[in-house]
């Protein structure tokens, strides 16, 4: 069972710095364990802005594969507005693209 990272309820410019640090720490801890992909959950996200989406976008550019799960309505709506729905479809980061299962 994969550990999951719960994105905070407030995912915006005010929490961006802290969230980034927490994410980095979490990835550093759980990444090397050899999971197929890391699960990032957006279940709790209630408030989100461009900075918050950008944080999540940044994940797409890392080696470690990841998958977005349980997106909240707020999160989905924001993604749709800004054109990031491919995350919602369950696509993961680079590693997944490169063909790794």
């Amino acid at each position, binding site marked *: 069972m994969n550990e999951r990272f719960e994105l905070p309820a*407030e995912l*915006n*410019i*005010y929490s*961006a*710095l802290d*969230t*980034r640090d927490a*994410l*980095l720490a979490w*990835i550093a801890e759980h990444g090397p364990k050899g999971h197929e992909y890391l699960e990032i959950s957006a279940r709790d996200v209630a*408030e*989100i*802005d*461009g*900075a918050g*989406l*950008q*944080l999540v*976008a*940044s*994940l*797409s*550019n*890392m080696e470690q594969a990841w998958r977005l799960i349980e997106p909240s309505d707020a999160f989905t709506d*924001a993604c749709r*507005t*800004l*054109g*990031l729905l491919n995350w919602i479809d369950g696509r993961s980061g680079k590693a997944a693209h490169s063909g790794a299962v």
Partner: protein
Amino acid sequence: MSNDADLDFIAQAMPAFISEAAEQIEAIETLLLELEEQPDNRELLDSLFRCAHTVKGSAGIFGLNRVVEFTHHVETLLDKMRDGDIALTPDISTLLLQCNDQIKFLVDTAADESADTAEQKDLRADLVVRLRALTDGNAQPVQAAPAAVKQAAGGADAGPQVWTISARFGPETFRNGMDPLSIARYLGSLGTVVRIKCGIDTVPPLVNLNPESCYLSFLMELETSSSREDIEGAFSFVMDDCELDVVAPETHGQKLVRAIEEMPETPRLGDMLVSVGAVSQDKLKEVLSTQQQTRGMPVVEKAKIGDLLETQAGVPPEAVAAALGKQQKLREGTPSEERYIRVQADRLDAVINLLGELVIAGAGATLLARESHQVALIEANLHMNSLIEEIRNGTLGLRMVPVGETFSRFRRVVRDTASSLGKEVNFEIVGGDAELDKSMVEKIADPLMHLVRNSLDHGLEPPQERINAGKPAAGKLVLSARHETGAILIRIEDDGRGINRERVLQRAWNRGLVEQGVVPPDDDINMLIFEPGFSTAEQVTNLSGRGVGMDVVRRNIEALRGTIRLNSNPGKGLQVDIRLPLTLAIIDGFLVGVGKSKFVLPLESVVEVIESGGDNVKVDSHGRHCVELRGAVLPVVRLRTLYTVESSLPDRVSIVVVSSLRGKFGIEVEVLLGQNQTVIKPLGRLFRTLRGISGSSILGSGEVALILDVTSLADLATGALHGFSAAQTPVTAAVSTALSS
């Protein structure tokens, strides 16, 4: 969101919003007033709608619900008006002006909810009720959610189009308080987002990411009837930091138009169209030969070829119109765009001051050059001085602004004042593009306002009285500006009662301004209203002044070295003429010497010079000095006597004949020192009551010369001379006596 963060964000971005919104609100007022003159003008209605729309949109991006909600109702009404469903009436006009004031209030207090008083809320609610009554309850319900407000499809002629919007946001975007997400959301509210893609490739990996910098961009296809301005408006607060490209799919005709506008000048219509591919060379030949056959007929060639191109060659009409327009512009030689640069006023003033120093330095150099008797040096100096004069003229021109801008401000005041007085007024502005130095324009506004209010208050009669007098019910008030040589003439003219001569005289007698029983000439009687002490408390109504009388008006105008004259036609109207010199800074002067002192006469008032021995100046029966000039008697002022200049009596004197508002007279001086350009240095408050002298000037030699004011010099001379009977100059003598007691 934490409250502190909220306030920070608002504090940062709010000023930009308020300043932009303020511009729109000002524009709305101007447009509304213009609309009253032309209620059917579709362009004005469109512009009005767009302004309100812009304010609402920006407020939406900031989540300022009160502004959005209220403005929405106003916008709905404006929309119906531009569609032609509702026509403008004076009541609607007043309502809209009041609504605009409310919008201003809402914008100003946008950051501070507590400033919204119960009184304002009630007023607002009332306005909304009246707005909705007009729009028949067809008002669209408004979602008060931040950022997104559904729009009714605008009446744009082109119908919905698909625009391609690509935006790359700059790194400071978040720090400036903006958010690509809300911008995208707002754009979505303008129509339908066909597709959108967010560019995230430029976002660095988490470990390198600065979470507060923005690396986002997006590409969007938006189907909307909104205009380009509306779309670009969504980005107005990130404009500085964002790379934006808004592309509309073009029809064929539009592509051609764009190509025509961008091409370098080609005079011939046909050639223009061929080179943009609107028509082939062969087709053009055909058209030209058709035209040739009709040569004999007396029609305008241009239109003909245009028509032929459209009908025969199938060139899209808009392309022909663009080509014709470009031809027209080439003929007129006007640039297709007027370009302006904003300049800080202080910097301009600093340059003008330096220029003043340059003029003085140039004069000094010229003196030295002359003394050197070196021809080459003298010529070089002349050349330099002529260049300095050109620069001077150009630079002074930079500070000139059209008076029309100030005049337009009066429209609203006239409208409201007339209405509150129950009078009908047709207010006209003529010659608004006459230009005046910026600082003078600002200083003239108050006196003008006072005079305008005076006309409204005392001059123009109520409608019934006018009808009884055989005049049209609506009074006429004209504010005009016109250039004369070296000066500008501003005239306030009304067709009201004029000045009541008897009443003025009576009051002057009562107040001791004129000796009881003495009847001065009509012009002088009219000018009595400017004497301090003339207005009483009853005169100074709420409208005409806050204890500000006509004497202050005259003083303000004289402080600008201007003059004010009245021309009254009792029962028919009043004309107030204000003459102002075009600039305060530099004048062309004529230098004269008396004893060790030097004086400067404004060149424009010098008529001629009589070199005469002192013998020609005679004393007439009244004790006035005068001289005979071509059969006429010319009064002469002796500066030496008047100003008690200490000097030994000279052998020769000269008389400079000057023209003033009191007529021509001569000034006796001892030395003529020729023309010079002088920078006017005001003498300062210490000398504010000094008559006859309007300022000082530093000569090339470093000496200070006093600049004479010919009109008040004439007054001074008349008042100072003894043996002048009351019948000759009653007012001047009586006034100065009264004032000095």
